[in-house]
Structure formats: structure tokens, C-alpha cells
């Protein structure tokens, strides 16, 4: 069964006109179509937020769970059925704030999934508070004197924690975004794509134009130089590099567990009676 990009587009979106989410959604539909992944073999897992509504707008299996908790069910689902292509898609507040602990520990765990973070540097669904990636000085209804703490750098953090695939994209560079999504989905292990996107309603600082004027594509031939990747991840301000900064697979969670070799766990037949010898331990 071959699918075209439009076959993945479903549902009536609840996003603001001009939202970066539209471009991200289109890029994802295109990536899935070009990878030839039929909807029933794809699982989109999200938390809560504007970005986290994506399972309602892309035709695939969907687990729209709790705020901050997109990664854990994605890991569980991949353990249960490794044949599913698992994609986690959520916002910066969900992924780096509420879900910060899962972010760190799943880099260590290295499950085979793509983590696509819609990073608009602000909370949209709760109407405009600072997110972990908001820039210092940004004033909001809660941060009335401006954000006073430094922004979390997700790419540097991921690199420090040992992530095998680290990339930055911009929703306004859709072809690059689509190509990067494909690479992340194909990457064996945890793949982080931090996607810069404007929030037209609540982020008046980091607008489409603000990003457009700053992003550039540095020359990265073989992204296996960790120090170089770290340098790129730290570039911010007048020049914001896009691209796959680091791409070096290592043993995944699935590969590390002997039980997961062979048939997916969910497909294996079972008969309790065959386990009665378990009792011998206690005789």
C-alpha cells in the first residue's frame, strides 16, 4: 500500500492561522509518505499542548496522553510492539519542562523512536507563559518583569547526555524539516529534532521573520564530531544554525534486551499452563 502525503492529513485543526504547526504537520505527512510507512504501522505519541494535538490531525495510531508524559508510553509501546514506527511529537513545555526527567532518562535509555519537539519558546495552550526555552527578558502575564532565568538548551543537553541523533529545524524550512524528520525516523535509537516555530498569538519576540533572518545551514559533512555538534548547538542569537548536528548510532534499548529479539512481544502466543515449572524454584 502506497500513501501520498495528503492521505495522512485528517481532522479539522484547532490551531491559529499562521501557526508553525501547519508546516510541521505537512512536513510529517510528507516524510511518512516518502518513507512508505502505512498509517497502521505508525504510532504518534504526544502529551498535552497545541503541538500535542498532532495525533488528531495525522492519520496514524495515536496515544494522546498526559502533559509532559509523551516519552514513557512511547517507550512502553515500542517494547510491546517493536514493529511499530514510534514518533513522539510534543511542545517545548511538554518535552523540556513537565517532561524534563523523561527527556534526560530516555536519552540514556535510547529507545528507537523519533522525538519531534515543536519549540515555539512559549506556552500556547495556557495562553502565553514562559516555557523552558523562552529567552531571558521576555515579558508575559506571569513573568511580568521578564524571564529572569536562562533558557534550557535542549540540543546541548541531549549531546551531553549522549544522544545519538541531534538536529535543529525551522518550520519555515519545510523541505529541510521533512528530510530531517525522515532521517530521525530512520535513525536506530533516540533521535531528537528540535523544531523552531513561531507562535503567532503569544510569542511576539521570536516571530517567523525573527527566525527567518537568523537561520542558516552550516556545512556539516559527517556529523559525528561531538565537539563540533556541541559548538553548533550553542550558537544562538544573530546566527542560528539548522541541520543534523550529530548522527552516530549506538546500542538501543531494544538491542540491549535479549527478550526483544524475534517476534514482537505483543504477537507471541501464551499458555499459562506451560509455566507451571516456575514453582520448582520454591520446592
Amino acid at each position, binding site marked *: 500500500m502506497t500513501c501520498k502525503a495528503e492521505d495522512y492529513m485528517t481532522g479539522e485543526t484547532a490551531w491559529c492561522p499562521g501557526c508553525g504547526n501547519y508546516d510541521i504537520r505537512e512536513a510529517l505527512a510528507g516524510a511518512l509518505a516518502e518513507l512508505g510507512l502505512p498509517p497502521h504501522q505508525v504510532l504518534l505519541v504526544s502529551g498535552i499542548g497545541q503541538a500535542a494535538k498532532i495525533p488528531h490531525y495525522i492519520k496514524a495510531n495515536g*496515544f494522546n496522553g498526559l502533559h509532559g508524559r509523551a516519552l514513557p508510553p512511547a517507550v512502553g509501546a515500542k517494547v510491546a510492539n517493536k514493529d*511499530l514506527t514510534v514518533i513522539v511529537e510534543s511542545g517545548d513545555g511538554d518535552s523540556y519542562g513537565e517532561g524534563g526527567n523523561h527527556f534526560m532518562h530516555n536519552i540514556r535509555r535510547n529507545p528507537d523512536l523519533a522525538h519531534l519537539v515543536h519549540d515555539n519558546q512559549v506556552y500556547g495552550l495556557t495562553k502565553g507563559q514562559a516555557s523552558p526555552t523562552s529567552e531571558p527578558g521576555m515579558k508575559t502575564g506571569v513573568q511580568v518583569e521578564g524571564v529572569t532565568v536562562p533558557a534550557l538548551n535542549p540540543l546541548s543537553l541531549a549531546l551531553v547526555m549522549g544522544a545519538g541523533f541531534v538536529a535543529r529545524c525551522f518550520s519555515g524550512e519545510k523541505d529541510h524539516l521533512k528530510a530531517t524528520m525522515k532521517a530521525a525516523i530512520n535513525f536506530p535509537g533516540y533521535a531528537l529534532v528540535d523544531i523552531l516555530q513561531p507562535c503567532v498569538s503569544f510569542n511576539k519576540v521570536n516571530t517567523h521573520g525573527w527566525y527567518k533572518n537568523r537561520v542558516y545551514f552550516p556545512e556539516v559533512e559527517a556529523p559525528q564530531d561531538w565537539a563540533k555538534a556541541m559548538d553548533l548547538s550553542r550558537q544562538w542569537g544573530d546566527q542560528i544554525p539548522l541541520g543534523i548536528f550529530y548522527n552516530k548510532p549506538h546500542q538501543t534499548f531494544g538491542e540491549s534486551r535479549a527478550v526483544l529479539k524475534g517476534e514482537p512481544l505483543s504477537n507471541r502466543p501464551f499458555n499459562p499452563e506451560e509455566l507451571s515449572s516456575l514453582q520448582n524454584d520454591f520446592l
Partner: protein
Amino acid sequence: MEINVLIGGAAGQGMETIMNLLGKALVREDFGLIYTKDYMSRVRGGHNFSRLRIAPGQPWTTVESIDVLVALNEETYRKHSQNLVPSGRVIYDPELFSLPGDESRGVPVELKKLAEEAGGRVMANTVAVGALLVLMGLETSTVEELLKDTFAGKEGVAEKNIKALKAGYDSAARTCSACFELPAKNQDGKKLFIDGNQVVGMAALASGCRFLSAYPMTPATGIMNYLASKSPDYPVIVEQAEDEIAAINMALGAAYAGVRAMTCTSGGGFSLMAEGVSLAGMTETPLVIVVGMRPGPATGLPTRTEQADLEFILHSGHGEFPRAVLSATSHDDAFYRLNKAFELADRYQTPVFFLTDQNFADTHRSVGLYDFSRLGYNRFLAAESNFEKPYKRYRITESGISPRILPGQYEGETVLIDSDEHDEKGNIIEDASTRRTMVDKRMRKLNGMAEEMDEPDLYGDPHPEVLLIGWGSTYGVIREAVDALIARGIKSAMLHFSDLWPLPQKRLHSLLAEVKHSFCIENNAGGQLSKLIRRESGLSINSNILKYDGRPFLPDEIVKEVQNDL
């Protein structure tokens, strides 16, 4: 005839390993026994002890009186000698302390010296077990055999322990002979020597649980240990989560994608899971949650027992959704009961709780072999001919149960679940009518679940005047209390709940109308089951007997309280 042994010392003296071997050896020789642990939340030092009761049949509980006190340090002797029966004996090391005025009960054995001669001071407890065997009139052979099995592959360990065991045996045999009569051996077949966490772990594996995600927390950690020890020989993944929030959400992901999944914790960790419980209810995802209770609030008494989380479990998670709550009453029943939890979770696509406590989790008992053919593995998935296409995860049905398929199972069909209120397809909605329809659909599942709850177990006089009501791990102790009351001429019976929610009420109505006096016996300060019964049935129980000092009930305490109140 029965023998009650208490062995005590400091944490880190290695009592557990050798006592487990002794217990297993005695069960192999067809004695019925129970073995309980009382330990402090520390790795070294303090005062830890275990009680071993060998009694006719399969005893349900340990008792306070002591026939043999194995005092690995002086503190053990000081704390427990007042419970020695007059003919009791004390195994002790004369190099460490003496028994002024109590020498006639002493069995001095140079525990430390003999252990060092055998290869290490840590085997002092093995020496003591050797001496204990003399007092019970047993040979060392079965323990020797078990030492060989247990330490196979660990060079020299078995040999050293056997040397220590024999040294203790020979030393005691020089000064005394068997002074206690063992009960008659059981003639009804092989028995297991198993603790509560092992029962739960084995039942989970044999129920087809393929994924356990949890964060270590006493007293539930033993379940993780058991299942982890079975991977990769059996198809189960045990994942130690970064926190309990991750644990429950991971398990939900695994359950959604098609395997039986479970998490286990204690009250504090479960507090972190509450939002995940609500998610299971809303997304209609099957999940078994084992909560091993210990005294709270907050960190409470980490290594001790309580039944104070019933109300919390009944109400945990925001919003309203159906759940079932079952409890572990005995090692015999819990094996099948946990399987029932998995079956209910799959059938009703909702969270099912299994409540244990430290008293159950850490207690070893001799129990008959389990019948694995009684275990169910029904996934209650819709066959391809039984669901409408395109598939709708939350199709409205009369039972409230929607046909369930798995993601990836059928080409062209996708499965969407959502923590927002949703329509039949799983998409977010906000309209009032769909909301009402969906709440009603979910809550209808409670009707079916109520039909599946087992009535509480009735034991004792068929026409009782006194009724003792309980739930969970108090099964054995209340049962022994009823036996004692009947022996004193009081017509009494026990009504004991394993399934707690939806609360089965038929027997309550018939019995409470009949009895003169009813008691609810609970390891908590609030009388939580008592209140639940009143709330659900309108029936009042006359008196509560409550214990909340972190220790399990003793039969005598219950008998005394009942008699005081009559």
C-alpha cells in the same frame, strides 16, 4: 505440638539467607510453617528479627510466645526473653554475653569462633541454625542439600556453610538433645515455601504479563526482583523507571500496544501515579497496579505494615471512571486473584488494583502447589469480523465495553486514544451531549464488574453470633482468632474480603442481620473498610478493632479485644 522460633540480630548479619534455607528445608520435610520478618529501614545495625512457626497443618500466623530464641546479639535476648515459654531455650554465643540467672535455658554455642573457623564471621547464623536443628531433633542433611543447590557455582561457599552448620550442630549436640517435639508431618503432597512478593511475581508472569515498569520501593520491590530474575528466560521486560510517573505511563504505553502490563509500588510512589491512573480510566487502557501498603503518611515506617491506603486507592485519580480493587488475603488465594486482576483489566479496559502490604509481601508460608490451568489468558480483543470499519476505539455499546483492537493489527485500521474527552473515534470533543454519552459509557462498565466480584470468604460457625470482618492480609490471623473464640465457646465466624470494589454486599446484608455483634478488624486508624461498608450498604458494624503501630495483628490481641467488647 508446635515450635516457635525467633532469631534476631543486627541488620547485615545475613539472617535472611540462612533462614530462607531452613524454612525451605523444613517444608521439604513436609512440615507446615510460616516465617515472618520484622526489620528496620537500615542496611547495617539496628535490631531485626524473624519468627518461624512450625505447627500442624499449614499455620496462618506467627505468635508472640517463643520456644527457641536464637540471639545473635545481646539486644535480641534482652528484648525477647520475656516471651520465652518456661521450657524455652536460648541459643547464644557465650563470648558475646551471658545469661545471668537464666543459665539453665541457655544453649551456649561459640557462634563467632566456629564461624571464623569455618571460613568467615558472617556464617555465625549458619552455626546457629546447626544448633537449632539439634533442639528440633533434625539432622543437617536437608539444609546441606539446599546449601549445595543455592550456592552452586559459587566456589567454596556451600562447603564453608556446611562446615559452619555441622560445627553448630556438633557443639549443641554435646550439651543438649532434642527438647521440642515437632508437629506431625503433613501427608497431603508437596508444598512450596514462598513469600507474598514471589507469589505476585510468579502469578504475573504466569498471567502473561510481559512488561513491568516500576521504581523500587519497599515492600513491593521483591516483585521487580522476581520478574527481573526470570528475564530473558521468559518473555518479560522489567524496566526500572526514572520515577513512578514514568513507570505507570510506560506500562500504559505497553498495554495500549498489546501486552499485559503491570506496575508495582507503595503508597508514596503510588501518589505520583495518580494522574496516570486517571489516564488509564479515560483512555480505557487495561492496567494492573500492585500497591504494597506500608504505614504513611509520607515516608512513614518504610519496612512495616499497614492497610491505610484503601480509601486512597478507591478515590485516586481525578475525575470519575470505573476501577476494580482486589486484595491479597493469603498466599494460596493471591496467585489466582492477581490473575483475576489481569482478566478484569483486559475485559473492562480499565485500571485494576491489587492491594498487598508488607505483612503479606515479606511473609513466607508453606502452601500447596498452584494449579496453573486455572489461570486465564483472555485478551478480549475483537476479531476482525466483530468490529465496524473504519475502526472506532470508543464505540458506544450497551456494556460500555468497546471492541478493542491493537495498533498495527489490521491494515488500514488505526487506534486513537486520548486523555481529552473524545468521540467514538478518539478525537477531542467539547460538546455536552458527547461528554454525557462517554461518561455514561465508561461508568456502565461498573455494572459488569460488580457481577464479577467474589463475595467475602465466610469461615467458622455457620450460625455465628459474633462476626469478625476483615480484608487483605489479615485473613490468616482473623481465621486463627475465630478458631480460638470457637474453642472458648463463642459462636463466631469470619467474613473476609478479597474483592473490595465494586463492593460485594450480599453476604454482608444476610449476616449482619443475623449476628449479635460485628467487628471490623483493620490495620489502620480510620476503620476504612468499616466506613466503606456503611457508605455502600447502609449497614453499620458494631465495633472496630484497629491497629496502626506498623505491626501485624496477633491472634491473641483480636481474641482479647473481642472478649472485652462482648
